[in-house]
């Protein structure tokens, strides 16, 4: 019988702690496949953030170090400057990258640091129990916007990828989602391209991934997948936001 799928070699044989329907496990799996396929295992270093995915280092079988909240891009900068042969990625949530770590992200991008940010946008602070994130949609109910996000009081959902795209050192930015097999394949393609930009020493790359958080959205996994399509992508449209890598798609 032909083997069509197998567990990625670089995904440790440890059960995920993530909630059923969470996007992190899918993204972890995709990244582990890519690191293996692109033969980066022996020189890649990952920087997971505080938050649900702080335990990413229990699943990725590659070198990893924890970062302080929001400082991933600065830590990755230090790594890359001291050890330029490394391929460095940060794995950051929306609060991490687009609130507390805004300055680090924009300035690392502006310096054109050869690092790749994997930006998980689930519109809430997950691990702390579903508070408002900078990306929380208007009228979305969270534990700190119990009457729904009022843009006159709490401001607007921030389109961080579009902001980073304005910065000249950023060479590749795409927004994808992991709410369908087709979108998961597109996510994998985007991350491949982002890592390739780093390998080719072109500058800063970022992939924003709309990722379901059924627990904090108070939805079933299926409803959360549908909500991404029906609601979230209207605020955060999918697709390539910036590509000055000068490369056409590899596949």
């Amino acid at each position, binding site marked *: 019988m032909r083997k069509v799928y197998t567990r990625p070699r670089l995904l440790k044989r440890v059960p995920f702690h993530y909630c059923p329907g969470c996007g992190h496990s899918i993204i972890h799996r995709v990244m582990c496949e890519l690191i293996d396929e692109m033969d980066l295992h022996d020189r890649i270093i990952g920087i997971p953030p505080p938050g649900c995915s702080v335990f990413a280092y229990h699943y990725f079988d590659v070198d990893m170090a924890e970062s*302080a909240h929001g400082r991933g891009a600065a830590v990755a900068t*230090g790594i890359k400057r001291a*050890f330029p042969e490394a391929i460095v990625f940060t794995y950051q949530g929306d609060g991490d990258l687009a609130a507390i770590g805004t300055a*680090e992200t924009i300035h690392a991008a502006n310096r054109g640091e050869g690092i790749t940010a994997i930006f998980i946008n689930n519109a809430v602070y997950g691990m702390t129990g579903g508070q408002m994130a900078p990306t929380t949609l208007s009228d979305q109910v969270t534990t700190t916007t119990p009457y729904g996000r009022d843009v006159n009081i709490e401001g607007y959902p921030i389109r961080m990828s579009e902001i980073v795209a304005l910065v000249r050192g950023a060479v590749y930015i795409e927004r994808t989602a992991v709410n369908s097999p087709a979108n998961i394949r597109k996510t994998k393609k985007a991350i491949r391209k982002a890592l390739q930009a780093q390998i080719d020493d072109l500058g800063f790359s970022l992939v924003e991934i709309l990722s379901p958080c059924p627990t904090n959205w108070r939805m079933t996994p299926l409803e959360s997948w549908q909500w991404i399509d029906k609601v979230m992508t209207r605020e955060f449209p999918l697709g390539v936001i910036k590509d000055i890598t000068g490369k056409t798609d590899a596949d």
Partner: protein
Amino acid sequence: MAKVLMNGNSTIGEAAIRAGCQCYFGYPITPQNELTEYMAAHLGRKKGCSFIQAESEIAAINMVYGASLVGARAMTSSSSPGISLKQEGISYLAACELPAVIVNMSRGGPGLGSISASQSDYFQATRGGGHGDYRTIVLAPSSGQELADLTHRAFDLADKYQIPVIILGDGMLGQMMEPVEFKHEAPEELPIRSNALRGAKGRPSRIIKTFTSKPTELEEINWSLFRRYQLIKKEETAFETFLVEDAKLIVVAFGIAARIAKGAIKNARTNGLKVGMLRPITLWPFPSEKVKGLAKRTRHFLVFEMSMGQMIEDVQLALEGKGEVSFYGRPGGVIPTPSEVFRAVSRLYHQKGLESAK
């Protein structure tokens, strides 16, 4: 090598490069800018080295954290308000047992304060500063030469104990020009620390982290740190004594204040007052045993600091009530003169009736 005339901030930069510092990440703040500028000019274009003027002090210390993760000798510097911002990163460095050198050319506080020299960051430097149960080695140079020597030592200590080391200077030391001899040549290449993250090539993958959902695991990390701190206390405590053998009054001062106090003590001796000095060189570990030992012969101690009195608490703790402790200090960036300190010394000497004491 012959002596060269340099300001203190540049001295630290040159000494750091000669200690094999590969990465410097900084952010402008007075009175330490000459150090950042020195590194921009002399480290930035050096092969295998990196200089970044970061977007903030927070970013700079986290870049240091990144560079240290992969085994580089890394340094950042700032002055008081900027050091406050670095505390988060210092706590992470301490927790992850990563070497790094952090320079604080301190200035008057609290708040934005003044740009003039002060010693009011003693608590912050010696009590951890950031969150959690940790220590950093704190070195307190008092001259241009010592800035060079202790900067070199800071990198060695950081590597030896896998710990962040703080050099606590001040704006005056940073700005002052003094002749300095650099005793070391920059190493050709330093060995890569065996526990560095360099990619899982030919070895199992490696994690550097502190977060755990099991409190007992974190407890064990804290115990392991504590055991190392005990070892550092035993091995690395450093101090200088000056004319303490027959002293009836001992001035305790560190850094630039000790330099000022020395002038006052020389004057006191000329006037027949038997005054000596203890100068802690490591503020943590504090030379408590030495203080206690001195109290066997001398009962009176005058702590002199350019603050409202912070190190005085360590002197009192060390004495365990066995001596009498007085204080003289000027806060806010005011730099007392040797004659002013001499007046404080002689006043206390006479108040306590020490001229007639045995």
